[in-house]
């Protein structure tokens, strides 16, 4: 395709690892930036340990499925940045790049001699996005975090659960996902600003801090009304309100019932659907879909106040109906009648069954040298002129070292060989992978 990409001509030096940083740069790559991932096998985290290597394949640097999905659209340069030679090469690369992204602890790049002041000497208008746990300023900047800790400390974990139970929390590193997206947003915003003003800058994104603005209305309820969230009936599970507790908004939209998850046929682990009626009219439509059973037409459920008050009964009745239907059938029937319903979907449901995601081509295959043809997740937006798409599989470790060192940076082949011999491009103590040997011919 000869079409121009949104980030055509933008080069990204990507020191990031594990999940949040790589998830950020993946999207910059999908939008057309050239993303060069700098990594080092001796302290690699993201490829290994791998829990997503297909059964039957050896677990090694190049077989993690999750790494593949998280690192499409990038090239890999293996470089020992802790060596003088490696540092010099990194600087030469930064000098011809637009953006530096990393998600180490707060002082790591500085210790390497690549703090913002140093980066500016190499490339005065560089945009530098640091994605640390707690940020580069503030007394706890050296605290360590993964998604679950950022979520706990920021108040996000507490939002999820049933009253009088421990927090259910988030069953994954939501703040690696959202922190990653924030990193990409910061990068784009910094580049936009640089294009207009000629000024680069250091953008200090912090995973724990990024989670706090996601609690806005609840925080205002405290700072404005003085109401905290350690209270009866909070968090209200999947409901908007827990019956028998004070009638207060719980920060997930209008206070309505029904608003819950219900079992569906045949009652398996993920056989659930959710139903929400945001008005009496929507409730009446649901009653019609259910075949207007006598219980549903009694006056106690006719008005919102009654449905909220008698929610336990209401939910039991609804579930006695929903359990007879497959979750997709229930969804279709409800939505055809203008009732808000959708299935709880596992990953398998989304990838294999969801007709909308299929229509929108959310999962398209891409060939990977070790993993074969695999579907990877696409962008959730369609840009009419510059569509985002995955154009490269995740790189094998060090796959593009020669291309970058000789092709982009202009070093001679003998310098590449010397760098392999002295441990700049691959640890001398570690056997070279066949494609690395190939590079040295």
């Amino acid at each position, binding site marked *: 395709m000869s079409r*121009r990409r949104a980030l*055509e001509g933008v080069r990204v030096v990507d020191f990031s690892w594990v999940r949040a940083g790589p998830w950020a740069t993946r*999207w910059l790559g999908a939008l057309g930036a050239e993303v060069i991932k700098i990594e080092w096998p001796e302290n690699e985290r993201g490829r290994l340990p791998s*829990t*997503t*290597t297909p059964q039957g394949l050896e677990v090694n640097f190049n077989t993690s499925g999750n790494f593949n999905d998280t690192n499409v659209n990038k090239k890999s340069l293996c470089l020992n940045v802790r060596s003088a030679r490696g540092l010099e090469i990194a600087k030469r690369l930064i000098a011809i790049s637009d953006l530096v992204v990393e998600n180490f602890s707060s002082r790591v790049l500085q210790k390497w001699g690549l703090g913002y002041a140093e980066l500016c000497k190499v490339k005065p208008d560089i945009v530098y996005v640091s994605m640390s746990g*707690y940020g580069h300023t503030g*007394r706890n900047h050296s605290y360590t*975090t993964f*998604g679950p800790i950022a979520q706990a*400390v*920021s*108040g996000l974990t507490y939002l*999820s659960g049933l009253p009088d*139970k*421990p927090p*259910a*929390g*988030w069953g994954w*590193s*939501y703040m690696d*996902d959202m922190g990653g*997206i924030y990193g990409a947003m910061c990068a784009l915003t*910094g580049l*936009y600003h640089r294009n207009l003003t000629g000024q680069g*800058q250091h*953008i200090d*994104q912090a995973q724990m*801090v990024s989670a706090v603005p996601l609690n*806005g*209305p*609840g*925080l*205002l309820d*405290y700072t*404005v009304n003085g109401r905290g969230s350690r209270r009866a009936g909070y968090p209200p599970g*999947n409901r908007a309100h827990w019956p028998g507790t004070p009638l207060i908004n719980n920060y*997930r939209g209008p*206070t309505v019932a029904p608003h819950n*998850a219900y079992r569906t046929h045949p009652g398996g682990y*993920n056989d*659930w659907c*959710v139903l929400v009626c945001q008005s009496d009219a929507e409730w009446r439509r649901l009653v019609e879909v259910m075949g207007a059973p006598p219980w549903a037409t009694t006056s106690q459920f006719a008005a919102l106040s009654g449905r909220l008050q008698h929610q336990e009964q209401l939910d039991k009745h609804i579930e006695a109906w929903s359990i007879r239907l497959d979750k997709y059938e229930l969804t279709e029937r409800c939505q055809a009648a*203008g*009732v*808000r319903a959708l299935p*709880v*979907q596992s*990953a398998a449901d*989304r*990838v294999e069954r969801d*007709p909308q995601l299929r*229509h929108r081509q959310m999962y398209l295959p891409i060939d990977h040298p070790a993993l074969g043809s*695999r579907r990877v997740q696409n962008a*959730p*937006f*369609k*840009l*009419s*002129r510059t569509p985002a798409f995955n154009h490269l599989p995740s790189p094998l470790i060090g796959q593009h070292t020669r291309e970058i060192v000789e092709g982009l940076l202009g070093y001679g082949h003998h310098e590449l060989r010397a760098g392999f011999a002295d441990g700049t491009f691959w640890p001398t103590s570690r056997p070279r992978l066949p494609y690395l040997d190939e590079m040295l011919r």
Partner: protein
Amino acid sequence: MTAAHIQPGPLAGLRVLELCDEKGQFCGKLLGDLGAAVIKIEPLGGEATRRVGPFLDDIPHPERSLSFWYYNTSKRGVTLNLETADGRRLFRRLAATTDVVLETFQPGYLASRELAYEPLCTQNPGLIMCSLTSFGQTGPWRDYLGSDLLHMAAGGEMASCGYDEADAPGAPPIAPGGGNAWHIGGHFAYMAILAALMHRAVTGQGQYIDASIHEACALTTEAAVANHIYRGETLLRQTGRHHAPARTPRTQFRSRDGTYVTALVAGRLNGKYVKDLATLLDRYGMPHDLHDPKFEDPAEIAASASYIIDELVANFIASLPAEEVYHAAQALGFTWGAVRAPEQLLDDAHLRDRGFWKQVEHPELGRSFTYPGEAAIYNGSPWRISRRAPLIGEHNMEIFCDELGLSRAEFSLLVENSAI
């Protein structure tokens, strides 16, 4: 702080029209707080999101919704009735000089009013229009209705969140609260708009963006999709910790003050970890046997994991308030954290050091309130809340008369005819 000498935000000069309900108001705030000049266009009487609580002093009123306040900072507001020809004409005039239109109507609505991207961009070829809807503009579900809970279900968030059977027998999958479907969708829409702006800066061309909240949510479950694609595994929901194909040791422990601490221990236990844990327990005089030389042997550590986690760590955390555990453990390098209620963040010294909390004036009330601040510090072009959420039609005269050039007579006529 005086405004005069403060640098502009990174999006200064960018003009945005926002026609959004709960699906897109957060994206408008993201743009506005970073310096864009956002005009929120509401139907006469105000956007429905003004009716979402909680309300100031629990008095329901469209100008007192704290939810609306939060999601609509740094925007000016006008009312405009797109059901009238005059209202549509005014909208076209606004759209002729804007950079971005962000809208969340049901697919097809704007086209039915001849306000789709195609006619609008002929008068303004650089226009970027982002439609952020529940399911996107195409496909079998495009006309389906959504809600935060619905997106958490179909997007896969719920399939990953919930309880160990022992903690809550028979519990359903749990949708985390807080309206995060709108946050997830808003973040991706922001990304798409900025990408379009980067393209426009080079080519001068605008474009249309069809963004889907369902797709954004479906992307936001970390490795769940990879687990399916590469290993065909179904993931189990677990209390306060990651989904997994098979049960994993717990990471959430009750503290003395009745709250919880998340302590990542399993999978990290090695000789150094055990030594550091001994130091931590010693510091609080907790009895333990971790100095026993047998814990230098990795095999012994592995065999004792359940003892270390479910007895030593659990008992240690049970003996102290959560905040104390959090800071004492982090000081020794442990990746542990207190499970806080959001309001506890007001006391967080680290956030204070970062100047996180902002005072926002509500001049009509003669009061100012504390708002959450920025996700990231832009050292060269600061984030800021430039104004509180607009009142209904607050800037009608400023924008329609002073900026668009309507005469007072024309303005009055439009008001009389319910166009604005």
